């Protein structure tokens, strides 16, 4: 019989891109706290939030979202972006990989993938809490 996991899961649904508002920083703050407390954390990127994992971000004074994202991915944050939104914004560079269900891009940091909105629905079902940030 399959053993049920007792680790609670948080899914954050982010709708806005970095720097135009504080939402991305807040999402990453919440994810970091959750991971440090031993929870599983998911970040699903929708609409302009698909810009969040873009490589090569350079900011003068603001915290670098890319660096924080890389760090959180390295400690377990799962990051997926909606293919419809990512494709519209030029991130999708080929056909879907039939095995992984992801779409190729060279523009994202390692560990962030482009996938279907259906993966968000699956994450909702396995989550204990779902938080939306952005507008």
């Amino acid at each position, binding site marked *: 019989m399959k053993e049920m996991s007792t680790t609670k899961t948080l899914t954050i*649904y982010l*709708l806005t891109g970095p720097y135009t508002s504080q939402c991305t920083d807040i999402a990453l703050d919440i994810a970091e706290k959750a991971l440090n407390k031993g929870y599983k954390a998911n970040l699903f990127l*929708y*609409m302009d939030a698909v810009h969040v994992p873009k490589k090569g971000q350079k900011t003068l004074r603001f915290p670098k979202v890319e660096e924080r994202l890389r760090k959180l991915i390295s400690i377990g944050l799962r990051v997926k972006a909606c293919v*419809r939104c990512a494709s519209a914004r030029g991130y999708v560079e080929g056909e879907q990989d039939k095995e992984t269900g992801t779409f190729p891009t060279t523009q994202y940091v390692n560990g962030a993938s482009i996938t*279907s*909105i*259906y993966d*968000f*629905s*699956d994450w*909702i*079902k*396995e*989550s*204990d*809490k*779902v938080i*939306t940030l952005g*507008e």
Partner: protein
Amino acid sequence: MVNSILIMITKAPYGRENVYGGLYTAIACLERKLSVTVVLVNDGVYSAMKGQASYKTLGYPNIEDLFYALFPPAKIFVDQSSMDERGIQKEDLIEIVEVIDEEELLNRIREHGEAIITY
């Protein structure tokens, strides 16, 4: 584990991507057998207006058609006070929506708001 989702749309259609985002997410959640409730409040009530011709005029997908893709099994509620503020009558809206007052809105949120996503 979360089994139901309430999608609250607060923005008007076409000027922003939000309504599409909400309704495409709702469709995906239905496909994955989640119980889906859509609530239209504030400028979100404009999303349910009858006779939208966005494909012809803007070249955008028609939001009215997306509601028909959701119902049934999803339920679609419209906030009466938001309609009143904007001079919108029930007859102005597509027939598959249900108009509710603030108390009923609160009850729907209590019943179906296991996870709430706002657009």
